[in-house]
């Protein structure tokens, strides 16, 4: 070949030989630069179709511009010979560098971050490497990593192990096959197709090898290697390897793709964290730092007594506590609490005799979950964030969107829905939290897309009749349901239309804004989508469009009447472009027939020049008789209806934009307390979690009188 010209490159010298072919140093006679030319072996097992595939892949890979990817300049065919012209990189392979006893941890991290970054770029472009191995990674004398041969290896169906096991290798060279085998993911041996997570497995092997000088799964024969990959756990790599790096490698080497990192960017972030982790992850206190209790002296507090009714209001600039009595017609305002911080989620926990307010606060300084047992006079603030992603997760907490109480008979259970979309659970009354891995490791997660407010899990709905069943809603991921207490989750979006995907009814990816369930009919759920109003009567198996007569089916909140499973409230806004109430009129819409028809509720609400937005947590119903409903706007107004929405009054204006509202009636004993029978003439408390429903006729009679 020496002296031959391929395209406009004159071959100068042979520099290597691999499974795919021979690599030559060459000189580009047009652009006057040195290049590497890989000539694919003529005796390759590639048939005509495979050759064309290879060409196509190489062309696609040539579009990858990234400092850690060896650039492909040109691909071509000359006299039936396939060749690939690449950037000429001077350096040694990672395989050679780590051959003796492995590299120091800082070098492994430095190179690992670059390899992961290269994979992240390629995966973003839909290109899987398929043959990542230390021999395909060059390190320049300056320490710059260059990953070679992106997307060039093809599964050509060559049987290298017998049976259904296939190899990626393009060439039947035994040495190259065994070299490649060590990096192959278990799913390949199981006959499943490779995806980007197979590359992440290979990255785990590469990191293991770089750290130790040997691959994690070894054997004398291909069968032994594959058997080890499928069944064995790698021998642990102990100190001086940082535990964080070992954790990353282990997660890359999870046998099930769903248990691995789901994106290369996550691996990159996790390695970066270990790198910086000298300062963060590794230095977390072994012992928990006791939360601080802060007494707020310069805040106007409301004095709360038994029989008071409270509204907890979260805004973009702090939280407020509004106090009234059962009449709900005079209001005293306390706050602002968490001056200047956004409060996206609030909860009131009266289980087990508590009177506890939970608040999530978000600012430049991070997101924290805080609690108060004295109605805001003092707040328990964790010194170290309690809701946090583990270091190996590859992501960091951006915000807490919902705080949900566990079931009545699990008074120490709490949940948080967070951004980036994930679910956290506490079983010790909020002292410690853990990531619900069953959902976080869901194979769909890498394909969830952030909505306008970020990629958030904003809604958590527990089925009170079945401890194993629970729903979450994700923007934009859709509705997910577990029926085994959170271990596994399934997408439940059948019938929900997606406007943001070519397939209008995808399995997942819908931008669900809110779901609501009536506790006494847990099979029934209502859903406000990013365009679309739906009902399910079969535990979210299927959804039916119920936008029958609303001026727009775009909106955020959906609220159930606490005693009537056919009665639901929404606030339509004009469109996703113009997220304001239709025609400048603030109207709540109510259905009393489960969505067969809707009626506008407007008396007392502004009906002129009212371009308002009501966010997903800013419409809530209370549990009193008659039912009250509360509405907060982004313009900082708060309205109340004490007659189930028929008429409204403004409670306050001038608040910062309202993000969430919660309400509670303060009782001495919260759990299992006997309530006085409701009177038809005066407002009465009604157990929030009462198991019995007043008879329909009684409810109807009460409604008439109210």
């Amino acid at each position, binding site marked *: 070949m020496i002296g031959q010209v391929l395209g406009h490159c004159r071959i100068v010298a042979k520099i290597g030989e691999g499974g795919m072919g021979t690599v030559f140093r060459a000189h580009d006679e047009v652009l006057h630069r040195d290049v590497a030319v890989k000539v694919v072996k003529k005796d390759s097992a590639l048939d005509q179709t495979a050759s064309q595939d290879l060409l196509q892949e190489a062309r696609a890979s040539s579009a990858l511009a990234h400092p850690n990817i060896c650039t492909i300049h040109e691909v071509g065919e000359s006299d039936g010979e396939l060749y690939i012209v690449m950037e000429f990189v001077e350096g040694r392979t990672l395989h050679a560098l780590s051959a003796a006893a492995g590299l120091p941890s800082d070098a492994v991290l430095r190179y690992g971050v670059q390899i992961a970054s290269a994979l992240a770029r390629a995966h973003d472009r839909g290109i899987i490497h398929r043959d990542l191995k230390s021999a395909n990674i060059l390190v320049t004398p300056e320490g710059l990593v260059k990953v070679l041969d992106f997307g060039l290896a093809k599964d050509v169906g060559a049987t290298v192990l017998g049976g259904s096991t296939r190899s990626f290798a393009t060439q039947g060279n035994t040495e190259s096959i065994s070299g490649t085998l060590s990096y192959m993911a278990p799913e390949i041996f199981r006959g499943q197709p490779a995806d980007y997570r197979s590359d992440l497995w290979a990255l785990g092997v590469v990191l293991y090898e770089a750290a130790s000088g040997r691959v994690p799964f070894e054997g004398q024969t291909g069968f032994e290697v594959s058997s080890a990959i499928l069944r064995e756990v790698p021998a642990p790599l102990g100190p001086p390897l940082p535990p964080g790096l070992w954790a990353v490698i282990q997660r890359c080497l999870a046998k099930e793709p769903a248990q691995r990192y789901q994106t290369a960017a996550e691996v990159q*972030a*996790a390695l*970066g*964290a*270990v*790198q*910086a*982790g*000298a*300062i*963060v*992850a590794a*230095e*977390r*206190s072994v012992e928990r*730092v006791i939360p*601080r209790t*802060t007494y707020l002296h310069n805040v106007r507090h409301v004095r709360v007594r038994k029989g008071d009714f409270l509204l907890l209001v979260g805004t973009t600039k702090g939280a407020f506590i509004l106090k009234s009595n059962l009449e709900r017609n005079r209001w005293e305002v306390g706050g602002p609490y968490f001056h200047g911080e956004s409060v996206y989620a609030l909860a009131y926990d009266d289980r087990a005799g508590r009177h506890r307010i939970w608040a999530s606060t978000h600012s*430049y*300084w*991070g997101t924290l979950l805080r609690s108060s047992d004295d109605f805001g006079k003092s707040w328990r603030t964790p*010194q*170290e*964030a309690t809701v*946090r*992603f*583990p*270091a190996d*997760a*590859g*992501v*960091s*907490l951006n915000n807490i969107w919902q705080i949900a109480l566990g079931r009545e008979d699990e008074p120490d259970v709490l949940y948080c829905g967070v951004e980036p979309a994930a679910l956290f659970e506490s079983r010790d009354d909020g002292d410690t939290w853990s990531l619900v891995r069953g959902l976080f490791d869901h194979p769909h997660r890498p394909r969830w897309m952030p909505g306008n407010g970020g990629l958030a899990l904003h809604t958590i709905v527990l089925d009170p009749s079945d401890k194993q069943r629970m729903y979450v809603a994700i923007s934009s991921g859709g509705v997910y349901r577990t029926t085994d207490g959170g271990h596994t989750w399934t997408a439940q979006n059948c019938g929900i239309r997606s406007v943001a995907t070519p397939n209008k009814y995808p399995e997942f990816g819908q931008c669900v804004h809110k779901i609501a369930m009536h506790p006494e009919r847990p099979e029934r759920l209502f859903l406000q989508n990013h365009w679309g109003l739906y009902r399910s009567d079969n535990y979210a198996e299927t959804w039916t469009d119920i936008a029958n007569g609303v001026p727009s089916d775009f909106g955020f909140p959906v609220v159930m009447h606490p005693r009537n499973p056919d009665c639901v409230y929404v606030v339509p806004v004009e469109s996703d472009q113009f997220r304001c109430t239709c025609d400048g009129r603030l109207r709540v819409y109510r259905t009393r027939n489960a969505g067969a028809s809707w009626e506008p509720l407007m008396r007392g609400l502004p009906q002129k020049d009212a371009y308002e937005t009501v966010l997903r947590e800013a419409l809530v119903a209370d549990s009193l008789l008659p039912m009250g409903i509360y509405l907060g706007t982004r313009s900082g107004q708060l309205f109340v209806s004490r007659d189930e929405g028929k008429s409204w009054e403004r409670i306050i204006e001038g608040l910062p934009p309202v993000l969430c509202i919660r309400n509670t009636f303060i009782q001495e004993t919260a759990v299992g307390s006997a309530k006085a029978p409701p009177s038809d003439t005066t407002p009465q408390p009604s157990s929030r979690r009462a198991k019995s429903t007043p008879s329909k006729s009684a409810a109807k009679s009460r409604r008439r009188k109210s």
Partner: protein
Amino acid sequence: MPVTIHLPGALREFADGRASVEITDPVTTLADVLAALWRLYPAIRDRMATEQGQVREHINIFIGDELTRYTGGLMSAVTTGSEITILPAVSGG
């Protein structure tokens, strides 16, 4: 000569009310300085950094007058007597 860290108001409550903290441990990088600060006052760490070890987006750290975002981030060199200032960025709404 120690390295001095000037804290913004929001962090002082986690450092016994101090406006500045002196680090006498041997340090060569900003990462060393922060690690020493967080050993002294653990609550400051989560307010400054994400779980992934990145300094939060709207927090700026200066060595002298230089913003460390442009001088190597956490690997920025620190010398004896350096004055380090932590400030929230000018942003928000």
